[in-house]
Protein backbone atom coordinates (compact mmCIF):
# COMPACT_ATOMS: atom_id res chain seq x y z
CA UNK A 1 0.00 0.00 0.00
CA UNK A 2 1.25 3.47 -0.87
CA UNK A 3 1.89 5.61 2.20
CA UNK A 4 -0.07 8.86 2.49
CA UNK A 5 2.91 10.78 3.82
CA UNK A 6 6.53 9.87 3.40
CA UNK A 7 8.37 11.26 6.42
CA UNK A 8 11.93 12.42 6.35
CA UNK A 9 14.26 12.73 9.32
CA UNK A 10 16.55 15.74 9.03
CA UNK A 11 19.78 15.48 10.99
CA UNK A 12 21.04 18.95 11.83
CA UNK A 13 23.87 20.59 13.68
CA UNK A 14 23.41 23.76 15.69
CA UNK A 15 26.22 26.23 15.32
CA UNK A 16 26.12 28.61 18.25
CA UNK A 17 28.49 29.82 20.94
CA UNK A 18 25.67 29.21 23.46
CA UNK A 19 24.91 25.90 25.12
CA UNK A 20 21.30 25.47 24.08
CA UNK A 21 18.79 23.39 26.00
CA UNK A 22 16.22 21.26 24.18
CA UNK A 23 13.38 23.46 25.36
CA UNK A 24 15.08 26.65 24.13
CA UNK A 25 15.59 25.11 20.71
CA UNK A 26 12.03 23.78 20.56
CA UNK A 27 10.57 27.20 21.41
CA UNK A 28 12.87 29.01 18.95
CA UNK A 29 12.06 26.61 16.14
CA UNK A 30 8.34 26.85 16.81
CA UNK A 31 8.45 30.65 16.90
CA UNK A 32 10.59 30.94 13.78
CA UNK A 33 8.52 28.46 11.78
CA UNK A 34 5.29 30.16 12.80
CA UNK A 35 6.60 33.56 11.68
CA UNK A 36 8.24 32.20 8.52
CA UNK A 37 5.52 29.86 7.28
CA UNK A 38 2.42 31.16 9.04
CA UNK A 39 -0.43 28.98 10.30
CA UNK A 40 -1.42 27.81 6.83
CA UNK A 41 2.19 27.11 5.85
CA UNK A 42 2.72 25.08 9.03
CA UNK A 43 -0.38 23.00 8.26
CA UNK A 44 1.16 22.12 4.87
CA UNK A 45 4.71 21.70 6.16
CA UNK A 46 4.50 20.26 9.66
CA UNK A 47 7.69 19.53 11.54
CA UNK A 48 8.61 18.03 14.89
CA UNK A 49 11.81 18.10 16.89
CA UNK A 50 12.43 14.40 17.58
CA UNK A 51 15.71 14.55 19.46
CA UNK A 52 18.48 16.94 20.38
CA UNK A 53 21.84 16.18 21.89
CA UNK A 54 22.74 19.20 24.03
CA UNK A 55 26.40 18.20 24.35
CA UNK A 56 27.17 17.61 20.69
CA UNK A 57 24.54 20.07 19.39
CA UNK A 58 23.16 17.53 16.92
CA UNK A 59 19.43 16.99 16.51
CA UNK A 60 16.75 15.27 14.44
CA UNK A 61 13.69 16.91 12.90
CA UNK A 62 10.77 15.08 11.29
CA UNK A 63 8.97 16.53 8.25
CA UNK A 64 7.14 15.30 5.13
CA UNK A 65 9.40 14.63 2.14
CA UNK A 66 7.53 17.24 0.07
CA UNK A 67 8.42 19.93 2.62
CA UNK A 68 12.12 19.20 2.73
CA UNK A 69 13.27 22.19 0.67
CA UNK A 70 11.05 24.72 2.43
CA UNK A 71 12.15 23.42 5.84
CA UNK A 72 15.77 23.59 4.74
CA UNK A 73 15.30 27.20 3.58
CA UNK A 74 13.49 28.11 6.80
CA UNK A 75 16.33 26.66 8.88
CA UNK A 76 18.91 28.50 6.75
CA UNK A 77 17.12 31.79 7.43
CA UNK A 78 17.12 31.29 11.20
CA UNK A 79 19.96 33.46 12.46
CA UNK A 80 19.32 34.43 16.08
CA UNK A 81 18.20 32.88 19.35
CA UNK A 82 17.54 35.17 22.31
CA UNK A 83 19.38 37.91 20.41
CA UNK A 84 22.50 35.75 20.05
CA UNK A 85 23.74 34.54 16.64
CA UNK A 86 22.91 30.99 15.64
CA UNK A 87 23.01 28.82 12.52
CA UNK A 88 21.42 25.45 11.87
CA UNK A 89 23.14 23.32 9.27
CA UNK A 90 21.38 20.31 7.80
CA UNK A 91 23.92 17.51 7.72
CA UNK A 92 21.95 14.53 6.38
CA UNK A 93 18.43 13.42 5.60
CA UNK A 94 17.18 9.93 6.32
CA UNK A 95 13.99 8.02 5.55
CA UNK A 96 13.76 6.19 8.90
CA UNK A 97 14.19 7.35 12.48
CA UNK A 98 16.34 4.35 13.32
CA UNK A 99 18.83 5.21 10.59
CA UNK A 100 18.68 8.92 11.48
CA UNK A 101 19.67 8.15 15.09
CA UNK A 102 22.58 6.06 13.86
CA UNK A 103 23.79 8.79 11.51
CA UNK A 104 23.36 11.45 14.21
CA UNK A 105 25.54 9.53 16.66
CA UNK A 106 28.20 8.94 14.00
CA UNK A 107 28.12 12.63 13.02
CA UNK A 108 28.32 13.74 16.64
CA UNK A 109 31.55 11.81 17.05
CA UNK A 110 32.97 13.21 13.81
CA UNK A 111 31.85 16.78 14.52
CA UNK A 112 33.23 16.78 18.05
CA UNK A 113 36.71 16.55 16.62
CA UNK A 114 36.22 18.86 13.66
CA UNK A 115 33.99 21.42 15.29
CA UNK A 116 36.14 22.11 18.35
CA UNK A 117 38.75 23.61 16.06
CA UNK A 118 36.23 25.86 14.31
CA UNK A 119 34.50 26.97 17.48
CA UNK A 120 37.82 27.80 19.11
CA UNK A 121 38.46 30.35 16.39
CA UNK A 122 34.93 31.66 16.37
CA UNK A 123 34.44 35.00 18.04
CA UNK A 124 31.93 35.11 20.84
CA UNK A 125 29.09 37.58 20.20
CA UNK A 126 30.46 39.97 22.84
CA UNK A 127 33.90 39.97 21.21
CA UNK A 128 32.41 40.57 17.79
CA UNK A 129 30.64 43.74 18.91
CA UNK A 130 33.70 45.02 20.74
CA UNK A 131 35.77 44.73 17.56
Amino acid sequence: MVKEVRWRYVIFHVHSPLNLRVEDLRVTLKKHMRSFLGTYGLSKNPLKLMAYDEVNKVGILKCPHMSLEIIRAALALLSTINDEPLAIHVMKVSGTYKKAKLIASQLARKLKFHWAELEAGMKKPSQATEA
Partner: protein
Amino acid sequence: MPKRHYADLHVRVTDEGDPPRLLIKMAKHLGLSLIALSLDDPHKLEDIRSIKGYGREFGVDVAIRVDLKPSSTSELKRCLGKLRRSVEVIGVCCHDTSVARTAARDRRVDVTFYDPENVLSILDEGQLSLLAESGHYVEVNLVDFLHTSPEKQAKALWNYSLALKRVVRRGIPIVVSSGASKIIDMRAPRELYALAFLLLDEKELAREAVSIKPLELVRLNREKLSPNFIQPGVRVVDEW
Protein backbone atom coordinates in the same frame (compact mmCIF):
# COMPACT_ATOMS: atom_id res chain seq x y z
CA MET B 1 27.39 10.38 -12.26
CA PRO B 2 30.15 12.94 -11.60
CA LYS B 3 30.11 14.68 -8.25
CA ARG B 4 28.58 18.15 -8.34
CA HIS B 5 30.81 20.95 -7.12
CA TYR B 6 29.45 23.96 -5.28
CA ALA B 7 30.72 27.48 -4.84
CA ASP B 8 30.08 30.47 -2.64
CA LEU B 9 31.04 33.51 -4.67
CA HIS B 10 30.72 36.04 -1.88
CA VAL B 11 32.49 35.56 1.44
CA ARG B 12 33.55 38.92 2.81
CA VAL B 13 36.81 39.56 4.62
CA THR B 14 36.30 42.46 7.02
CA ASP B 15 37.90 43.72 10.22
CA GLU B 16 34.77 42.88 12.23
CA GLY B 17 34.37 39.42 10.67
CA ASP B 18 36.24 36.16 11.14
CA PRO B 19 39.77 35.72 9.76
CA PRO B 20 40.09 34.30 6.20
CA ARG B 21 41.65 31.04 7.40
CA LEU B 22 38.63 30.29 9.55
CA LEU B 23 36.30 31.12 6.67
CA ILE B 24 38.16 28.64 4.47
CA LYS B 25 37.97 25.94 7.16
CA MET B 26 34.24 26.53 7.45
CA ALA B 27 33.84 26.35 3.66
CA LYS B 28 35.56 22.96 3.71
CA HIS B 29 33.34 21.81 6.57
CA LEU B 30 30.23 22.86 4.65
CA GLY B 31 31.32 21.05 1.48
CA LEU B 32 32.12 23.99 -0.79
CA SER B 33 34.68 23.47 -3.56
CA LEU B 34 35.28 27.14 -4.27
CA ILE B 35 34.88 30.35 -2.35
CA ALA B 36 35.52 33.89 -3.49
CA LEU B 37 36.96 35.98 -0.67
CA SER B 38 35.89 39.54 -1.21
CA LEU B 39 37.54 42.71 0.00
CA ASP B 40 35.96 46.09 0.48
CA ASP B 41 39.37 47.70 0.58
CA PRO B 42 41.55 46.98 -2.52
CA HIS B 43 44.69 47.99 -0.57
CA LYS B 44 44.53 44.71 1.34
CA LEU B 45 44.86 42.65 -1.84
CA GLU B 46 48.45 41.61 -1.17
CA ASP B 47 47.60 40.24 2.31
CA ILE B 48 44.86 38.07 0.95
CA ARG B 49 46.86 36.56 -1.92
CA SER B 50 48.90 34.43 0.48
CA ILE B 51 45.71 32.78 1.66
CA LYS B 52 45.23 31.04 -1.70
CA GLY B 53 47.91 28.49 -0.86
CA TYR B 54 46.24 27.80 2.47
CA GLY B 55 42.97 27.11 0.66
CA ARG B 56 44.74 24.72 -1.73
CA GLU B 57 46.12 22.76 1.25
CA PHE B 58 42.59 22.40 2.58
CA GLY B 59 41.16 21.39 -0.78
CA VAL B 60 39.18 24.61 -1.22
CA ASP B 61 39.76 26.70 -4.31
CA VAL B 62 40.01 30.34 -3.28
CA ALA B 63 39.26 33.14 -5.72
CA ILE B 64 39.92 36.81 -5.00
CA ARG B 65 37.08 39.23 -5.38
CA VAL B 66 36.66 42.96 -4.88
CA ASP B 67 33.36 44.59 -4.02
CA LEU B 68 32.95 48.14 -5.19
CA LYS B 69 30.44 50.53 -3.71
CA PRO B 70 31.25 53.72 -5.61
CA SER B 71 29.59 57.00 -4.82
CA SER B 72 29.79 58.15 -8.45
CA THR B 73 30.15 56.65 -11.91
CA SER B 74 33.60 58.22 -12.41
CA GLU B 75 34.84 56.56 -9.21
CA LEU B 76 33.51 53.22 -10.46
CA LYS B 77 35.34 53.55 -13.78
CA ARG B 78 38.57 54.56 -12.06
CA CYS B 79 38.43 51.56 -9.71
CA LEU B 80 37.61 49.16 -12.54
CA GLY B 81 40.57 50.35 -14.59
CA LYS B 82 42.88 49.85 -11.62
CA LEU B 83 41.60 46.47 -10.42
CA ARG B 84 40.39 44.47 -13.39
CA ARG B 85 43.68 42.74 -14.15
CA SER B 86 44.46 41.93 -10.52
CA VAL B 87 41.36 40.13 -9.22
CA GLU B 88 39.28 37.21 -10.44
CA VAL B 89 35.85 38.62 -9.68
CA ILE B 90 34.58 42.19 -9.50
CA GLY B 91 31.24 42.84 -7.86
CA VAL B 92 29.42 46.15 -7.76
CA CYS B 93 26.88 47.06 -5.12
CA CYS B 94 24.23 48.94 -7.09
CA HIS B 95 22.81 51.25 -4.47
CA ASP B 96 21.59 53.89 -6.91
CA THR B 97 20.38 53.95 -10.50
CA SER B 98 23.27 55.85 -12.11
CA VAL B 99 25.90 53.51 -10.63
CA ALA B 100 23.76 50.49 -11.57
CA ARG B 101 23.45 51.66 -15.19
CA THR B 102 27.19 52.29 -15.54
CA ALA B 103 28.03 48.93 -13.93
CA ALA B 104 25.59 47.13 -16.21
CA ARG B 105 27.12 48.77 -19.30
CA ASP B 106 30.73 48.06 -18.33
CA ARG B 107 32.08 44.68 -19.39
CA ARG B 108 34.79 44.76 -16.71
CA VAL B 109 32.13 44.15 -14.07
CA ASP B 110 31.24 40.50 -13.39
CA VAL B 111 28.54 40.58 -10.76
CA THR B 112 26.00 43.18 -9.68
CA PHE B 113 24.15 42.95 -6.39
CA TYR B 114 21.43 45.10 -4.92
CA ASP B 115 19.90 46.32 -1.73
CA PRO B 116 16.74 44.21 -1.10
CA GLU B 117 14.78 47.38 -0.34
CA ASN B 118 15.32 49.00 -3.74
CA VAL B 119 16.05 45.99 -5.94
CA LEU B 120 12.69 46.32 -7.70
CA SER B 121 13.16 49.96 -8.62
CA ILE B 122 16.75 49.56 -9.85
CA LEU B 123 16.28 46.26 -11.71
CA ASP B 124 13.84 47.75 -14.21
CA GLU B 125 13.57 47.02 -17.94
CA GLY B 126 16.37 49.43 -18.84
CA GLN B 127 18.79 47.86 -16.38
CA LEU B 128 17.82 44.35 -17.48
CA SER B 129 18.46 45.16 -21.15
CA LEU B 130 21.95 46.43 -20.32
CA LEU B 131 22.67 43.39 -18.12
CA ALA B 132 21.48 41.00 -20.83
CA GLU B 133 23.74 42.67 -23.41
CA SER B 134 26.87 42.65 -21.27
CA GLY B 135 26.31 39.16 -19.83
CA HIS B 136 26.66 40.15 -16.17
CA TYR B 137 25.55 37.97 -13.31
CA VAL B 138 22.93 39.10 -10.81
CA GLU B 139 23.76 38.04 -7.27
CA VAL B 140 21.50 37.35 -4.30
CA ASN B 141 23.15 37.34 -0.88
CA LEU B 142 21.66 35.21 1.86
CA VAL B 143 22.99 37.59 4.50
CA ASP B 144 20.41 40.17 3.32
CA PHE B 145 17.75 37.95 4.86
CA LEU B 146 19.52 37.29 8.15
CA HIS B 147 19.56 39.25 11.44
CA THR B 148 16.45 41.15 10.48
CA SER B 149 12.82 41.27 11.57
CA PRO B 150 10.31 38.80 10.04
CA GLU B 151 8.54 41.73 8.31
CA LYS B 152 11.75 42.89 6.64
CA GLN B 153 12.62 39.30 5.76
CA ALA B 154 9.23 38.84 4.10
CA LYS B 155 9.59 42.12 2.20
CA ALA B 156 13.07 41.15 0.99
CA LEU B 157 11.83 37.72 -0.15
CA TRP B 158 8.94 39.34 -2.01
CA ASN B 159 11.15 41.98 -3.70
CA TYR B 160 13.79 39.45 -4.73
CA SER B 161 11.32 36.86 -6.03
CA LEU B 162 9.66 39.50 -8.26
CA ALA B 163 12.98 40.93 -9.44
CA LEU B 164 14.42 37.48 -10.16
CA LYS B 165 11.41 36.54 -12.27
CA ARG B 166 12.26 39.50 -14.52
CA VAL B 167 15.91 38.46 -14.56
CA VAL B 168 15.07 34.86 -15.52
CA ARG B 169 12.76 36.06 -18.32
CA ARG B 170 15.68 37.96 -19.85
CA GLY B 171 18.01 34.95 -19.57
CA ILE B 172 20.45 36.74 -17.25
CA PRO B 173 22.49 34.31 -15.10
CA ILE B 174 21.82 34.32 -11.36
CA VAL B 175 24.25 33.49 -8.55
CA VAL B 176 23.18 32.81 -4.97
CA SER B 177 25.90 33.40 -2.37
CA SER B 178 26.09 33.78 1.37
CA GLY B 179 27.61 37.29 1.55
CA ALA B 180 28.86 36.29 5.00
CA SER B 181 31.77 37.79 6.88
CA LYS B 182 31.46 35.42 9.88
CA ILE B 183 31.39 31.64 9.83
CA ILE B 184 28.08 31.68 11.68
CA ASP B 185 26.47 33.36 8.66
CA MET B 186 27.91 30.89 6.13
CA ARG B 187 25.57 28.25 4.81
CA ALA B 188 25.97 24.85 3.17
CA PRO B 189 25.38 24.58 -0.60
CA ARG B 190 22.09 22.73 -0.14
CA GLU B 191 20.87 25.56 2.09
CA LEU B 192 21.82 28.16 -0.51
CA TYR B 193 20.05 25.97 -3.05
CA ALA B 194 16.93 25.86 -0.86
CA LEU B 195 16.88 29.67 -0.72
CA ALA B 196 17.39 29.86 -4.50
CA PHE B 197 14.53 27.41 -4.98
CA LEU B 198 12.33 29.51 -2.71
CA LEU B 199 13.04 32.59 -4.81
CA LEU B 200 13.13 31.08 -8.29
CA ASP B 201 10.63 28.23 -7.91
CA GLU B 202 12.62 26.16 -10.39
CA LYS B 203 14.91 23.33 -9.33
CA GLU B 204 17.38 23.37 -12.22
CA LEU B 205 17.90 27.15 -12.14
CA ALA B 206 18.35 27.04 -8.38
CA ARG B 207 20.95 24.29 -8.67
CA GLU B 208 22.83 26.19 -11.38
CA ALA B 209 22.85 29.34 -9.23
CA VAL B 210 24.98 27.66 -6.56
CA SER B 211 27.13 25.37 -8.67
CA ILE B 212 27.49 25.74 -12.44
CA LYS B 213 27.17 29.51 -12.84
CA PRO B 214 29.65 30.68 -10.16
CA LEU B 215 32.20 28.02 -11.14
CA GLU B 216 31.89 28.99 -14.80
CA LEU B 217 32.37 32.67 -14.01
CA VAL B 218 35.60 32.05 -12.09
CA ARG B 219 36.92 29.63 -14.74
CA LEU B 220 36.30 32.15 -17.54
CA ASN B 221 37.88 35.02 -15.63
CA ARG B 222 40.96 32.95 -14.76
CA GLU B 223 41.30 32.15 -18.44
CA LYS B 224 41.09 35.85 -19.26
CA LEU B 225 43.72 36.69 -16.66
CA SER B 226 46.19 34.13 -18.00
CA PRO B 227 49.04 35.58 -20.14
CA ASN B 228 48.04 33.32 -23.06
CA PHE B 229 44.62 34.88 -23.45
CA ILE B 230 44.08 37.08 -26.49
CA GLN B 231 40.29 37.30 -26.74
CA PRO B 232 37.39 34.88 -26.16
CA GLY B 233 38.14 31.80 -28.25
CA VAL B 234 41.69 32.91 -29.13
CA ARG B 235 44.74 32.10 -27.03
CA VAL B 236 48.45 31.56 -27.52
CA VAL B 237 49.21 27.84 -27.76
CA ASP B 238 52.85 28.02 -28.79
CA GLU B 239 55.52 30.65 -29.41
CA TRP B 240 58.49 30.51 -31.74
